[in-house]
């Protein structure tokens, strides 16, 4: 089980951290790097394209990567996948944050499955990014290498409502026992209607 993040400690030390920002948009790069500068990161590499990012990663040890999901012709997801499969120790294990403007479920799933450590939606807020960095730094996630996936462990164990109290710890928690059904079961026809495309006229 991946432990829940501990409460945010009051201090963070990123002075010795080397970060890489990858974004094809110059202003986007400024936004990422200025945010990290504010966080006390002194050594920031800026890559305006995937080629440059790859060359930096081949030459230097990087401790944190912020990467836009859209990198011109290439996607940020392909870049992260390349990094995870590169076998360049220790860079292939570096925490990678994919920053995306389009956070529909398939996009987020793609970003997760390429091996990113966290997906952050735009517009970036320093408070949110700080919280995510603290989370990734504090969580003890294993690194998985398999035929289909290489990256931080994607599994999160959900244990349901805490059972030590009849209705959980929070006001909104329901009971841990299942109640009676509230309606009739759906027919096969109803179920088919849910998953089969319907013809619509323009």
């Amino acid at each position, binding site marked *: 089980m991946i432990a829940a993040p501990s409460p945010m*400690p*009051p*201090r*963070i*030390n*990123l*002075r*010795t*951290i*080397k970060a890489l920002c990858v974004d094809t948009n110059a*202003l*986007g790069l*400024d*936004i990422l790097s*200025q*945010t990290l*500068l*504010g*966080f*006390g990161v002194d050594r920031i590499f800026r890559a305006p394209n995937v080629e440059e990012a790859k060359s930096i990663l081949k030459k230097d*040890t990087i*401790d*944190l990567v912020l990467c*836009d*999901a*859209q990198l011109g012709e290439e996607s940020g997801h392909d870049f992260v996948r390349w990094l995870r499969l590169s076998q360049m120790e*220790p860079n292939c*294990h*570096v*925490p990678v944050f994919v920053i*995306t*403007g*389009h*956070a*529909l479920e398939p996009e987020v799933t793609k970003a997760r499955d390429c091996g990113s450590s966290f997906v952050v939606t*735009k*517009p*970036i*807020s*320093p*408070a949110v*990014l*700080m919280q995510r960095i*603290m989370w*990734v*730094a*504090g969580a*003890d996630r*294993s*690194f*998985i*290498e*398999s*035929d*289909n996936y290489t990256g931080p*462990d994607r599994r999160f164990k959900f244990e349901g409502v805490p059972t030590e109290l009849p209705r959980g710890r929070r006001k909104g928690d329901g009971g841990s026992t299942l109640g009676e059904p509230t309606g009739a079961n759906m027919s096969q026809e109803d179920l088919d209607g849910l998953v*089969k*495309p319907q013809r*619509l006229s*323009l």
Partner: protein
Amino acid sequence: MTVIIRKVRTALQREYRKAGGILTSEAITDANENLGLLSAQCIEQIDFTLDHVSDLTADPLKRPTAEELRELHAAVNEMLSCCAAVKIDGFADTLHAVGRLVGALMAADVWLEGALTPAANLLRLVRRGAVAPDKVAVLIVGLDQCAARMRSYSRAATYQ
């Protein structure tokens, strides 16, 4: 299938709690101040990109090409980056809705006449602050309804 599970301790994990750090609240304030310095440039970039969006959606009868849709998608992404340094009420939400609509169009072969015109107009109006926040929410629902309709014609839905 072989699965290797490693315990890797990254430099970030080793360093982030070391002595001599700064208060996280101060770090966030400093970052916000740094972003504030970029706000003029971001406004300029947003206006420039909005002009490009208007050009791409000028003809309501013509479906944008795949390349133009990719450009629109990228334009929305760029403007969302800029929203980190510029606070315009409802603008980021509108951009997200336009992104959903463009995404739905990219996945469908059909074209509903003028499908992108309200999106481009709404972006301009919200940028100028000409729409009240509660009205923006209602208009975003309209964009999402259009996106849902486009999704019903998506290639995935058609060939299911």
